[in-house]
């Protein structure tokens, strides 16, 4: 790619190294305060246990009207209290519901995560450039992880009931939001206040409700400590994600990562501004050890700048390749499991793979995102990745050659710029940054500038 010129000297690539570091959702989550859940549905607690969910990840696979939705949450509460309500466009048959593999989310996360790349400046006295790439080390992301009777007269109908994996699933249709609220309450769910108001628009538009609880017996058979992702396949002309219900019992800003897998182009929000995060910037090398802090601070700055009302694109690429790769692209078999139904089994992976991935990240509140998220697949095919660059200085001395003197002068200017960039991106104190970088103050640079004639003859 454009930033990796692979020039050869006598056919042998120099052993320069780029080390990759990627930021997984986990590393971000570690720094997030415990907040209430964020999801496209809302959790309804059956007891007074506080339920927490730090961030949600959703994979939307879509071509024409066919959609496969996979939901992964980081549910931390007692499993017996877990319940999820999601509006769905139709009564789903059992075959349309599936238990996904959390590892696929992990792989997708690693593949598309914002990345830190590292370069070493070449010896200015031997002006030849060569870069080679080292495979990135995979950071590990770990995910933690009653039968309902109908009551007549509430206008609530149990359209279907299944046990799929560790989930007991009921699909409900309702005529009135009050009836649905009463039904859920009388079946032992503790509905957050305001639920019926939020449920009403979905009922009026004829949507059904997918209600899932954990079947503890089935869950113990899985011998997993976390809940596996739920997937469902359906057809709907609406390309959207219902996020409003998830905000009813939210106690603060919610964090959501949406991976959209489509055939042709980048996906963006239709009813909110979609912005690419600042990327491909040189930042000081000390950030290597605080990349999570850096990314979190930068994201905070961007989110606040846009008053929590924008959707941020973190990655858009063809699913068949990457450059540099933070993780190997997902194999066609993995993509198929995520719901990419248009891939044929003999499809080879590679640049021409008819699958594009868009990773969107949003932090939102009920006020800043008053409507559910509506998406469109654009015709945009230009790759984008969150990429931050560290450049290690050459370790020689200015006396070694004339070019080295120029190099060190430029190096200083570069460091000044890196410090500025970092301060602007993160809101960190510039003086602190300069101190950490061991940067000389401005006056010495100015003195050098005043003696501009020194390099003239």
């Amino acid at each position, binding site marked *: 790619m454009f930033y990796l010129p692979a020039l050869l000297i006598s056919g042998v690539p120099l052993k320069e190294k780029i080390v990759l570091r990627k930021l997984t959702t986990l590393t971000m989550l570690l720094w997030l305060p415990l907040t209430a859940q964020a999801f496209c549905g809302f959790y309804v607690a059956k007891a007074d246990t506080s339920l927490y969910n730090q961030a949600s990840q959703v994979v939307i696979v879509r071509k024409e009207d066919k959609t496969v939705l996979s939901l992964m949450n980081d549910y931390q509460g007692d499993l017996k209290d877990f319940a999820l309500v999601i509006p769905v466009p139709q009564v789903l048959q059992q075959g349309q519901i599936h238990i996904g593999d959390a590892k696929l989310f992990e792989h997708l996360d690693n593949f598309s995560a914002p990345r830190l790349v590292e370069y070493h400046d070449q010896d200015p006295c031997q002006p030849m450039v060569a870069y080679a790439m080292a495979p990135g080390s995979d950071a590990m992301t770990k995910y933690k992880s009653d039968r309902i009777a109908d009551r007549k007269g509430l206008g609530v109908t149990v359209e279907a009931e299944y046990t799929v994996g560790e989930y007991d699933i009921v699909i409900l249709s309702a005529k009135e*939001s009050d009836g649905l609220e009463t039904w859920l309450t009388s079946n032992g769910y503790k509905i957050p206040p305001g639920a019926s*108001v939020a449920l*009403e*628009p979905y009922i*009026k*538009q004829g949507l059904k409700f997918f209600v899932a609880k954990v079947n503890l017996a089935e869950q113990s058979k899985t011998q997993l400590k976390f809940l596996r992702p739920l997937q469902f396949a359906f057809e*709907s*002309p*609406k*390309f959207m994600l219902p996020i409003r219900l998830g905000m009813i019992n939210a106690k603060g800003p919610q964090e959501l990562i949406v991976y959209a897998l489509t055939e*042709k*182009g980048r996906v*963006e*929000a*239709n*009813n*909110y*501004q*979609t*912005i*690419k995060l600042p990327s491909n910037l040189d930042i000081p090398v000390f950030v290597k050890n605080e990349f999570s802090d850096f990314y979190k601070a930068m994201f905070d700055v961007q989110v606040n700048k*846009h*008053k929590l*009302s*924008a*959707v941020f694109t973190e990655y858009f690429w063809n699913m068949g390749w990457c450059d540099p790769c933070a993780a190997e692209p997902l194999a066609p078999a993995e993509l198929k499991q995520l719901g990419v139904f248009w891939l044929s089994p003999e499809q080879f992976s590679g640049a021409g793979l008819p699958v594009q991935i868009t990773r969107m990240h949003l932090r939102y509140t009920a*006020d800043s995102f*008053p*409507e559910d998220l509506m998406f*469109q697949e*654009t*015709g*945009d*095919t*230009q790759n984008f990745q969150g990429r931050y660059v560290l450049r290690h200085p050459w370790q020689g001395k200015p006396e070694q050659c004339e070019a080295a003197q120029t190099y060190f002068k430029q190096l200083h200017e570069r460091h000044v710029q890196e410090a500025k960039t970092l301060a602007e991106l993160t809101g960190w104190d510039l003086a602190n940054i300069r101190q950490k970088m061991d940067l000389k103050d401005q006056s010495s640079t100015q003195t050098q500038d005043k003696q501009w004639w020194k390099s003239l003859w």
Partner: protein
Amino acid sequence: MSLRALVHYDPRIWQLSIMGSLLCLGVVFRDFSLQPLQILLTFVAGILTQKFFLHTRQLHARGLLSALITCFGLCLLVRSSTLWVHPILASLAISSKFLLRIHNRHVFNPANLGVILGLTLFPETWVATGQWGSDLSTALWLIAGGFWVAGNAGRLDISAYFLLFYTTLFFAIRIGWYGYPLSVMLHQLQNGALLLFAFFMISDPMTIPLHPWARILHAFIVAVFAYVWQYGLYKNQSLIWALFFASLLVPLWNVLFTGPAYQWRSS
């Protein structure tokens, strides 16, 4: 010449400056994903096409302001991964003014037709309806208000009727019947695309009905079509498509409801 006199001379000058400043704001502050070369090529192609038709048809040098407005409209609305889509659309849009004519009036608003052609003919082309953040939308409201006060295009009634019909439909169905909170409505009204459409596209005096009653009818059809397109059929770019289809009926309205032809004052 004072600003008022200038605007009175030709309201398109006011419109041009507003669209120009919006484009600058968008490119500089809003990540409009538009390359300077795309803008340049749009204008070069647009002006050359206009000149070409004026020359071959031996018309008086006129319509340059309208051509510039079309180019601004295309730059504000159309996004493409390639460089050549914008100039092609500008050429096609401006050519349509000379080639697609009924009763000696052009049928489509050129920018509207340009966007439709972009969406249908070129796969790497899209319209970023969400590109207007709320702060820029606020600015747009202020500007549009200014345009309203100062504007003397004489056809701004259609902007008001369209906004009235569209927001009434939205309010009645989505807020009143479905029960969405009022904030959803406010969020809709902040959409810069809606405002840009209402004030700078549907209000094009050359392509809307000549008679005031027919304009109300036209505004109503566009509003209903746009609502159904977006919220009944769940399709994108509802306003653009609504105006495109409704424009086909305008020649009929002009036969049924006759009115004086519109002339830009400076022409």
